[in-house]
C-alpha cells in the first residue's frame, strides 16, 4: 500500500493560512517584563545561574543546560532579575515551572551582550559545536529538541542529506512561510552551516505548494548563492510537494522526498537524513555569525478573534497577552487559545503565559471557528481512521486496546509508531478523541516500564550486596581452612594409621569439589565477560542514560564479586586436595 515517494493516508483540512500571510513580518514591541521558563526544550530543564536582583543584559546567559539533552536560556531583555520562582507556563500539564523573571525600566536601553562573531567557513567543528551549545538554539518547529545534539550526529551516523523541513502542513501556521519570505538567505546559509557540520552531500528543501511567495523567494535566493559562490557545495535542491496533512511530519516528509523510511523507534539519522526547520537554521546561523543567542523567535498570531493577525518576531518570555493585544485581540470573542497548530497543538487556559522557544503559533479562535467537539459516540469500526493514517496503523484497533488497557496488544499493533498527527480524530464520524487515548496509553506504558526498570535496578543492587557478602564469607572460610590445615599438618605427624581409609574418602570428595568449583569459576568468568560486554556496548552506543550505565556497572561488579568468591573457594579446595595427596 505504501507507494514510492509518498506516504499513505493524509487529510486536507481547511488551510486558514491566508489569515496571517497578508501582512509582512514585523518586530514586536520590546516587553517590559519577560518570564523565561527553564524547560523550553525537550530534555532536562536548565538551572538558573543568576540571582534575584542581578542586572542582566540582552543575550546574557541566565540558566545553564543540565545533562546530555538540555539547552541554555538567555536573557531576552536588559533589566533586573526580579524573581526566580514557579510560574504558569504553556505545557500540556497546565502546571507551573521554574522561571527566571526579568524586568526592564520602561525607558531602559536594550543593551546587548553578544558572543564574538564566527565565520563558520573558517572555524573548526569543535568551535562551532561549542557555540551552538552556548547559544540555546533548539528546534523552533514546535518540538524544541536542542540543536547542538543534532549537530553532533556525525559522531554516530553518516548523513548524506540535510533536509530543510519547510512543509509547514498544519493549518493556520505561517511562521516558516514568513521566515522564508523575509530571511531566505539566512536560512540557506544556516543550512550550509549544518550541512558542513554533518558532512551532508546535499541540501534538500521540502515545501508545500501552498506557499508560492516563499517558493519564489527561495528560488531567487538559491540562484544568488549559486552565482555568488561558484563552488557552492553542497548543492541545493528545492522540492515542492502537493499540500496534504501531515506532509510536514519528519518521517512523512522523508518518505515523500527521498522514499526512505525511518525505522521504527529510530531517527532520521538512521537513514542518513538530518531534518531542520527553517527558523532553527536561521537561529543557528545568527548564533554563529552574529554571536547572538536564541532570545527571540518568529511566531504566527492568528485566529478570527484577532483584528490584525500576522507574524511577529518577539522576544522569548513576552507575555502572550501582550502579543495578542498588540494584534487586536477581541477578548469577548476569544473562545479557545491554542499554541501550535489546531491538529497537534495544545489548548491553553489563559493568555497570561510567556512565549517560549516552542511557540510557533498562537491561535485566538472564536467559538464558530474551532467549535467544541460534539459528544463522543461509540466506535463502529467504520475504518475512516485507517484510510487517513499516515503511518499505516489500525487506529480503531489501537483505540480498543488503549481503552481497555490491553497495553501489550496496543504495543503489538505498533502504538509507539503513532505520530499523534490527529488525522484519525479529524475524520472520526463518532467524534472520538483517538489521539488522547493513544497518549494516555503511551503514558501508562512508559510509566510501567519506568517502574519495571526501577525494580530491576533495585534487584541488581540487592544481588550485588548478596554477592559481596558471599565473597567475604568465602574468603573468611578459606582463611579459616588454611589455618585449620596448618594445625592439622602438625597433628598428622603423630596420627594413627587407622585414619588412612577415611582420608582416602576425603581426598575423593575434595577432588569432586575442586572439579565443581572449576566449572563454577568458568561460569563466573563468562558471566563477567558478558556483563562487561553489555557495559561496553551501552557506553559505545552513547544512548543509554547515566542510570542505565550505573546499573550495568553494578552488574559487572556483581559478576566480579561472584568470580572472586568462587576463586577463593577454589583455592581453598585445591589446597585441601594437595594436602590430602602429600599426606598419602
Amino acid at each position: 500500500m505504501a507507494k514510492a515517494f509518498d506516504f499513505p493516508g493524509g487529510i486536507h483540512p481547511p488551510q486558514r493560512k491566508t489569515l496571517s500571510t497578508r501582512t509582512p513580518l514585523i518586530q514586536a514591541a520590546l516587553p517590559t517584563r519577560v518570564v523565561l521558563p527553564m524547560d523550553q526544550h525537550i530534555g532536562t530543564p536548565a538551572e538558573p545561574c543568576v540571582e534575584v536582583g542581578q542586572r542582566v543584559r540582552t543575550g546574557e546567559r541566565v540558566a545553564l543546560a543540565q545533562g546530555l539533552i538540555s539547552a541554555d536560556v538567555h536573557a531576552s531583555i536588559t533589566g533586573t532579575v526580579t524573581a526566580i520562582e514557579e510560574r504558569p507556563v504553556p505545557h500540556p500539564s497546565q502546571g507551573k515551572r521554574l522561571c527566571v523573571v526579568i524586568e526592564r525600566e520602561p525607558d531602559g536601553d536594550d543593551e546587548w551582550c553578544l558572543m564574538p562573531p564566527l565565520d563558520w567557513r573558517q572555524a573548526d567543528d569543535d568551535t562551532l559545536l561549542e557555540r551552538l551549545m552556548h547559544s540555546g538554539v533548539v528546534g523552533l518547529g514546535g518540538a524544541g529538541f536542542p540543536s547542538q545534539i543534532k549537530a553532533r550526529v556525525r559522531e554516530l551516523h553518516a548523513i548524506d542529506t540535510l533536509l530543510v523541513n519547510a512543509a509547514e502542513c498544519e493549518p493556520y501556521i505561517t511562521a516558516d512561510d514568513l521566515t522564508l519570505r523575509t530571511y531566505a538567505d539566512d536560512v540557506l546559509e544556516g543550512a550550509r552551516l549544518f550541512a558542513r557540520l554533518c558532512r551532508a552531500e546535499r541540501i534538500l528543501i521540502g515545501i508545500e505548494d501552498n506557499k508560492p511567495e516563499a517558493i519564489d523567494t527561495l528560488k531567487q535566493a538559491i540562484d544568488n548563492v549559486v552565482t555568488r559562490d561558484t563552488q557552492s557545495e553542497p548543492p541545493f535542491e528545492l522540492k515542492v510537494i502537493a499540500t496534504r496533512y501531515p506532509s510536514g511530519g519528519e518521517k512523512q516528509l522523508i518518505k515523500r522526498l527521498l522514499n526512505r523510511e525511518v525505522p521504527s523507534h529510530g531517527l532520521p539519522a538512521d537513514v542518513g537524513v538530518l531534518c531542520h526547520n527553517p527558523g532553527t537554521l536561521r537561529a543557528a546561523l545568527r548564533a554563529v555569525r552574529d554571536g547572538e543567542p536564541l532570545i527571540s523567535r518568529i511566531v504566527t498570531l492568528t485566529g478570527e478573534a484577532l483584528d490584525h493577525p500576522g507574524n511577529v518576531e518577539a522576544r522569548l518570555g513576552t507575555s502572550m497577552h501582550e502579543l495578542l493585544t498588540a494584534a487586536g485581540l477581541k477578548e469577548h470573542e476569544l473562545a479557545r487559545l491554542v499554541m501550535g497548530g489546531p491538529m497537534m497543538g495544545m489548548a491553553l487556559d489563559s493568555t497570561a503565559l510567556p512565549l517560549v522557544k516552542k511557540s510557533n503559533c498562537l491561535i485566538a479562535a472564536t467559538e464558530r471557528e474551532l467549535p467544541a467537539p460534539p459528544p463522543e459516540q461509540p466506535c463502529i469500526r467504520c475504518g475512516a481512521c485507517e484510510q487517513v493514517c499516515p503511518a499505516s496503523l489500525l487506529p480503531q484497533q489501537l483505540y480498543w486496546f488503549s481503552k481497555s488497557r490491553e497495553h501489550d496488544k496496543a504495543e503489538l499493533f505498533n502504538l509507539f509508531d503513532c505520530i499523534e498527527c490527529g488525522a484519525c480524530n479529524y475524520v472520526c464520524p463518532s467524534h472520538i478523541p483517538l489521539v488522547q487515548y493513544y497518549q494516555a496509553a503511551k503514558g501508562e506504558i512508559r510509566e510501567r516500564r519506568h517502574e519495571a526498570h526501577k525494580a530491576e535496578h533495585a534487584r541488581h543492587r540487592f544481588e550485588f550486596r548478596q554477592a559481596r557478602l558471599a565473597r567475604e564469607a568465602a574468603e573468611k572460610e578459606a582463611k579459616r581452612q588454611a589455618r585449620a590445615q596448618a594445625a592439622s599438618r602438625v597433628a598428622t605427624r603423630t596420627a594413627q594409621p587407622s585414619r588412612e581409609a577415611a582420608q582416602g574418602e576425603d581426598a575423593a570428595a575434595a577432588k569432586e569439589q575442586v572439579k565443581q568449583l572449576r566449572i563454577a569459576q568458568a561460569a563466573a568468568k563468562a558471566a563477567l565477560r558478558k556483563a562487561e560486554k553489555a557495559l561496553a556496548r551501552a557506553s559505545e552506543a552513547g544512548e543509554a542514560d547515566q542510570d542505565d550505565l550505573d546499573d550495568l556497572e553494578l552488574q559487572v561488579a556483581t559478576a566480579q564479586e561472584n568470580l572472586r568468591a568462587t576463586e577463593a573457594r577454589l583455592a581453598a579446595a585445591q589446597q585441601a586436595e594437595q594436602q590430602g595427596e602429600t599426606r598419602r
Partner: protein
Amino acid sequence: MSLMHASAEPARLPTSTGRVMAWLLLATLPGIATLAWYFGWGVLTNVLAATAFAVALEALVLKLRGRSPTATLSDNSALVTGVLLGVSLPPGSSWWLILVGVVAAIVIAKQLFGGLGHNPFNPAMVGYALLLVAFPLPMTQWAAPHGLFGPEATTLPDALRLLAGLTDPLALDGMSGATPLDAFKHKPEAVMASEFWASSPLPEGTMNAWHSVSLAWLVGGALLLYKRLIGWHIPVAMLGAMAVIAALLYGVDPSHYGSPLFHLLGGAAIFGAFFIATDPVSAATSRKGKLYYGAGVGVLVMLIRTTGAYPDAVAFAVLLMNFAVPFIDYYTQPRTYGHHAPTRGIKVKRLEDETEEPR
C-alpha cells in the same frame, strides 16, 4: 488533540454516525421499493413493524441500562437493524415472528454485548438465523410475485391481518411459494436443470422479480460506495468468490449446479454483499482483512448452498465469518511505517531469561 473536525467541512463522506446510518437507510430504499413492488404490502408491513420494534426495544434496554435513550437512538443504528431484518423476512410475517427476531437482534446480539460498536455478530443476521432455525415453516414461505396492485395481489388489509396473525399465510392463495434457490435446492436428483426450469416450478415471474430486486440492491450498494460508507473490498471479494466457485461448479456439471448469474442474482447475495457483510462493527478492519473476510463469506455461502441444508446461506456465512474476524484482524495488519514486515498474529511476550543468548 485535534481541534478541527471534518464535520465542520463540506465533504462527500458523512461525518457523524447518525448521518452515516441515515444514508444507509436511504440506500435501502430502492431495494425495499422493488421488493414491495413485486411481493406486495407484506414487505412494507415487515419493515415498519421491525423498525418500530427495534426502536422501542432499544429504548427499553437503554433505559434499563441507565443510558439516555434519545442520545443513543439518534445514531439511527436501531433503525438500520430493524430495516435490514424486516426486508430479510418473508413478506407478510406475523408480528410475533418479527418480535422474536428483533429481540434476538437488538436485545441479545446488540445491547447485551454492550450496544453499538460492541457486537461481535451482525445483529440483523443473528435475529434472522434464530428465526430460520426455530421457525423453519413460516420462514421459508415466500410470497408469490403478485405485485402491489395486481388482481391476485395481497391487499393492504390482508397484509395487516397477516401481520396481526389473524390469517394463516398458508391459507392465502398468493402466499404459496418458495424462493428460486429453495426450489432449485429441492430439485429431484434425476431431473436435469434444464428440464427443471422448463417445468416452471415457481409462480410466474418469480425469477424476474428476484433479478430485479437484486439489481435494486445493487443500486443502493452503488450509492453506499459513492458516499464512501463502505469500501469496495468486501462486496467485490464476496461476490467474486461466489462467482468463481459457481462458475467452476457450473462448468463441471451444468445440469445440477446453478449458473453464476443464478447464484448472484437469484437470492440474497447482492443484498448480503453490500448491506450485511459490510457492517463495519462485525467485519474485519484492515483493507486486506476485508478482502479475506468477504471472500470467506462468499466461499461459505457457496458451500452451504451446494452442500448444506439451507438454500440461501448469507446469514450463516456472515455469522461464521464474524467468528473469524479477530483472527483475521491479527493476521492482516498493514505494514506500519518504519517496519520491515507487518506484525502477524498475537505474539506471546517471552520472559527476559528466555531471550538471553545461550552461553
